[in-house]
């Protein structure tokens, strides 16, 4: 491409002035390549890899090459806001796939003004409002729905007393507060005996787990990520609480948990929204074919979510191009609107078995989840897909 041959002064000039539009169909993705949550960046790699897979095997989408750009938001709000502007303003992206909950919240009104289809990796219910934010999409059950699915499973197993543990970050406190205030736990016939907030980079939670032990709950739901789940389970073992007492959200399916904790992790359950990497699903064959020729950065569940996101984007873009007569609309604004309309119109999106077939009229796609349990050092799906509704 032309601008790649330019040198530093040209690059610096490009910082200040918009680049000319490229002829390709542009998709802009940002993730966290360097930053605190880089461990789950499979979510952005997966999407980029799937679109490149289409470029390599089918010449793109509906005959159009996709120009996909991956950027590093570093999980810093100002960086993400800057990247968003680059995607919309300079890269002329027809679809933007963003990352953090914070950026989705900060951008939710601008996304409407720009009328650009915007998919976020967040599961926050606060950006999910098809009437208010018609251009904003998430991909899967919200944190609140995941929590209720987990608690419902516990209730079915005879639990009565519930405790919640969450980190002192947005994604820890907000969903827990929503669920607590909604009274959904009580409606289920469960009693919420206590909620514990802990620091997100906690290195030791023994005292908190003593507090859990004192309240003697039947189930503890964890709203945090893998490093925190590791600390919780390790210190639970210290105070004599079994791992099967705990249920985590979709970010707690990570090989490092059984690897590092061994027997202390046996029986821990987590919510699973997407098939595991390596599961016997059709999409895995595509990934294997892609991997034969390319490097796959992260072979995990989050990569599967990313691959799923790629399929969602590709399906909508494909439909939009077909409807406009096999060529993308010349006007980027019309193209963006067409893609957004096709996203909402998607019915029974086939994700190659990564998630159950779903539609995106609800702006969140699949609302099903199932439980995965650590058995013999591996996550094993227990039970079938349950719908959050």
């Amino acid at each position, binding site marked *: 491409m032309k601008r790649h041959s330019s040198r530093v002064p040209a690059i610096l000039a490009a910082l200040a002035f918009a680049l000319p539009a490229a002829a390709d169909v542009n998709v802009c993705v940002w993730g*966290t*390549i*360097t*930053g*605190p949550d*880089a*461990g789950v*960046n499979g979510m952005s790699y997966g999407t980029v890899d799937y679109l490149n897979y289409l470029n390599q095997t089918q010449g793109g989408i509906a005959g159009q090459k996709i120009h996909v750009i991956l950027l590093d938001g570093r999980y810093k709000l100002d960086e993400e806001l800057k990247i968003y502007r680059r995607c919309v303003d300079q890269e002329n992206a027809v679809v933007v796939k963003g990352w953090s909950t914070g950026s989705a919240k900060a951008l939710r009104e601008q996304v409407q003004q720009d009328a650009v289809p915007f998919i976020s990796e967040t599961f926050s219910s606060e950006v999910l409002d098809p009437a208010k934010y018609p251009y904003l999409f998430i991909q899967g059950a919200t944190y609140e729905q995941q929590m209720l699915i987990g608690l419902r499973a516990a209730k079915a197993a005879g639990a009565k007393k519930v405790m919640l543990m969450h980190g*002192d970050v947005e994604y820890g*406190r907000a969903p827990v*507060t929503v669920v*607590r205030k909604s009274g959904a736990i009580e409606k289920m016939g469960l009693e919420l005996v*206590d*909620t514990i*907030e*802990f*620091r*997100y*980079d*906690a*290195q*030791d*939670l*023994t*005292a*908190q787990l*003593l*507090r859990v032990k*004192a309240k003697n709950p039947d189930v503890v739901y964890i709203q945090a990520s*893998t*490093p925190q789940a*590791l*600390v919780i389970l390790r210190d639970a*073992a*210290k*105070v*004599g609480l079994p791992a099967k007492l705990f249920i985590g959200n979709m970010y707690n399916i990570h090989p*490092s948990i059984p*690897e*590092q904790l*061994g027997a202390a992790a046996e029986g821990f359950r987590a919510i699973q929204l997407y098939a595991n990497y390596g599961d016997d699903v059709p999409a895995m064959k595509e990934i294997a074919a892609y991997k034969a020729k390319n490097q796959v950065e992260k072979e995990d569940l989050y990569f599967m979510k990313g691959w799923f996101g790629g399929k969602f984007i590709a399906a909508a873009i494909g439909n939009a191009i077909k409807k406009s007569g096999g060529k993308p609309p010349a006007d980027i604004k019309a193209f963006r609107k067409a893609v957004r309309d096709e996203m909402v119109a998607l019915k029974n999106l086939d994700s190659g078995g990564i998630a159950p077939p779903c539609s995106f009229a609800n702006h969140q796609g699949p609302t099903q989840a199932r439980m995965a349990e650590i058995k013999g050092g591996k996550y094993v799906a227990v039970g079938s897909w349950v719908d959050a509704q």
Partner: protein
Amino acid sequence: MLLLQIATAGIATGSVYALIAIGIVLIYKCSGVVNFGQGGYAMLGAYAAYALARAGLSPPLAAAGAVLVLGVVGALTELLVLRRMLRAPVVAVMMVTLGLLILFRAVCLAVWGPDQIAFPQIFPQGAVQIAGIFITYNYVAAALLSLVLSLAFLAFYRFTPMGLMQRAAADNSRAALAVGIHVSNQVSVAWAVSSALAGLGGVLLATLNGLSLTLSNIGLVAFPVIVLGGLTSLMGSLVAGLLLGMLEAFTDGLLTPALESFLRAHTSIYSVGALQQVVPYMLVGGMLLVRPQGIFGQRGTERV
């Protein structure tokens, strides 16, 4: 019973704080530099041990090797960076250590990536039951090693000629020079020892929590320790480290639940959040107003 359990948990974490804090104090005593980057050296030590273990060394040997490597890194830091800044303002020196912290994190990120890594087992698996808590051998070993090393350092400074030279260099560098002590060499030694200690602390932490870039946060977590203990007192770091560990555990185990149940009953506030995180710094604020030299520190010239 609960009190005993909480105290046990607190001592285990507090002993690691002490180890990191002693390293910071060592450098400060000798050269007047506060190393904000101590957590970076701890992180570097843990990654070095991991790399050596991956290269085929047995885990305990890898840990020992990492401690040596960090000693060299510390001495190099002093020779290449700090020695050039002898006349620089305090702020600049503080910032340079922060810059090194950022640099170290970026290097580890580039080499080992951002993911959490399972750390090789150094201590045998298993646990002892103390006061109804199952303390894994990892914790027992980390706590014992920290305590023994801290005490060894106290003894070293009090009873050996090298320790005497170090103290002289720290006390009055001009007088030390006058009696023939090579002060800048003493400072290099202090940096080497301090970094080696930090490296060991990092290795111990990684055996407890696994290995990732967040390990470098320990420097700022342990920072209140040196203020509470007194910037110039090794004994103070040891005591304050243990106290701070216990304080955090008691905040988590007793204060926070009590406060929250009161607030939930009487106000619309539901949670006080991670109170444990700020209690040490609130204490620091208070301490600075009342007794800036810390519990054990000597009254310096810093107060106006």
